[in-house]
């Protein structure tokens, strides 16, 4: 589904990604772990098309074509979704209005019919129920005054409604208690099928008990230094990252 080839990226002249290679096939779940500052969020942001980064070398091939020239909205329309590590608060834009605009933009781009407000309401309520969220969140401004956990769940709600093909989760588990973690994991697992793929960035092995990955990679200083199966996560949990650094 996606192939990241020898990716080099900088921000303000500072090298962050240094020749990163990663291939994710349809139906697979990959996990990326690594110390703070190793470039995990940078990788996620670059996949989503954030503008602040200079790609100095390499390529990102998604569904057979380079997406480096695509704007973030075009990538989203093609099925790429990033659950942000730090979701932005947007006062004055209601969650419901935002979600409907997002879904309809994606539907339009895919040639699917646009949902009427009533139809959208039904869909949103059903997903909210699945994520055990409070319906009033729909009426509130996007993420404004949401607790940390509510913000993370709201990311997963968006994912559940937009039904992306490739979902990137950037530390969605950080700050969640075990109940919330299970709910989030259920939301993710409900989208798992042979057509979708996931890139799960996390610090903690415990998330991977619920979202079981096919592959685990360790990112250090902007490069994948080790890959393995889910047992690698357990190994990292006990040994830390220092044995893989330098």
């Amino acid at each position, binding site marked *: 589904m996606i192939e990241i080839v020898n990716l080099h990226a900088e921000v303000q002249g500072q090298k962050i990604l240094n020749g990163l290679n990663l291939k994710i096939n349809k139906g697979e779940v990959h996990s990326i772990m690594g110390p703070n500052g190793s470039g995990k969020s940078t990788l996620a942001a670059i996949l989503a098309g954030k503008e602040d980064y200079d790609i100095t070398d390499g390529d990102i091939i998604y569904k057979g074509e380079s997406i480096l020239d695509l*704007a973030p*909205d075009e990538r989203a329309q093609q099925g790429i979704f990033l659950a942000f590590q730090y979701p932005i608060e947007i006062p*004055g834009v209601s969650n419901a*209005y*935002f979600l409907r605009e997002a879904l309809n933009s994606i539907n339009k781009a895919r040639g699917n019919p646009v949902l009427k407000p009533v139809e959208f309401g039904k869909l949103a309520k059903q997903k909210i129920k699945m994520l055990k969220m409070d319906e009033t969140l729909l009426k509130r401004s996007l993420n404004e005054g949401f607790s940390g956990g509510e913000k993370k769940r709201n990311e997963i709600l968006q994912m559940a409604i937009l039904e992306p093909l490739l979902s990137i989760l950037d530390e969605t588990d950080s700050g969640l208690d075990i109940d919330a973690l299970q709910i989030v994991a259920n939301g993710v697992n409900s989208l798992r099928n042979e057509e979708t793929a996931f890139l799960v960035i996390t610090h903690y092995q415990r998330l991977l008990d619920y979202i079981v990955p096919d592959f685990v990679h360790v990112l250090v200083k902007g490069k994948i230094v080790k890959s393995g199966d889910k047992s690698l996560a357990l190994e990292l949990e006990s040994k830390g990252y220092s044995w893989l650094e330098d």
Partner: protein
Amino acid sequence: MDNLQNKLIKNFKEKGLAEYPLEWLGNYRLDAINAAESLGVPDLSNEDWRFTSLKEFIKKDFSFFDGKAETYNKPKLPEHIKSIDGYFVYMHNGQLVSDSDYPFSLTRLNDSFEDLKVKEILLNEVSSKNKDFFYELSCAFIDDGFFLKLEGSNRLDKPIVIINSFDSDVDSKFVNTRNIFYFEESSSAEIIEYSVSESVNEFFLNKTSIVYVDQNARVEHLLVEDGNKNSFIFSNLKIVQGRDSHFTTNSILSGGQLIRNNVHPILNGEGCFSNILGLYLSSEDQLMDNYMFVEHLKPHCESTQLYKGLLNDESRGVFHGRILVHKEAQKTNAYQTNRNLLLSDKAQVDTKPQLEIYADDVKCSHGATIGQIDKEALHYLQARGINKDKAMLMLIKAFTDEVCEPMESEVLLEAFHNIVNDWFVKSELLEPENQE
């Protein structure tokens, strides 16, 4: 001395405005022209005009216009204004041209000077008179306009929609107009004042409205200044509120080369509430200057100001927020917020709070921000599939919509949204067919 001032004083004398049969009125005008003369056209050294230069303006050759329109054609109005279910009052060049029947009394001001209420309102300034050249000018040339009265306990079922239009056949007119609104005890009304101009000639409009909101009355007011590059608009809105009254005003400045928007609510009875809202939408090389003067005279009152500016191109905005709490006005709550969103690197805004508090038990706050579209927010929306233009518009709308949140009237709210949308279309932020 500058040309404009001399010219207008000459006009005043030629028209014999001080020699009116009613002695008090003649004196009222004479005092005002003398005050205007001694004040002079303000320059940047005047604290109240620090950010707005009138240097170019006073070079213009405006002269007083009191001619009647030979033929009056109703102005072209946007469909959403035309279709409002309201009591339409038409004004042209500052003169009342409607003569329909209304559930309120409405007379031309120049036919109303014998009315003792009019005399009382004009002679009793209530508050410390604001020493302003243009206000004095409006008093000196007082003649056209209307006197509108809604009797006690009357609740209007539909809004009053005042349409102001201006001629285009005479060049360089100075139009002076004064409207007096008097809402008696426990009455309630909604007002939309819509000024539009397609004038191909420059004109200078000096417009003063005095709104009396008596004890326990409720009034909600939407003012729209939608001029064009030939409009030089000086607007004074003075509100005198009685005990337990409730007044909301929202000014949308959406067009005009130069607009000075003075809003002066006077909280003159215990327990009254004043909501002062505004949105200035500027583009090209327009200048929109808002001068707020909120005056608390009595205890237990609350005023909230929320003014927002959306500035495009090389336009400039000014917000001057003065709050004066008199000694007697204990337990006053007075809040002020000014926020500005710059859509271009060349747009500019100056904001200045000015608090003068002489009572000791007062809650007062003010805050101002100037910013640009939040890039992180824009990215977040785009990352969910929303294209950049749409995402920008969502953020801009979120910004402008806040200004109408305190409004209660459905009709005024709808008008607000439509007028702001018109501006988005005019500014090419929104495709006409996508109008929501």
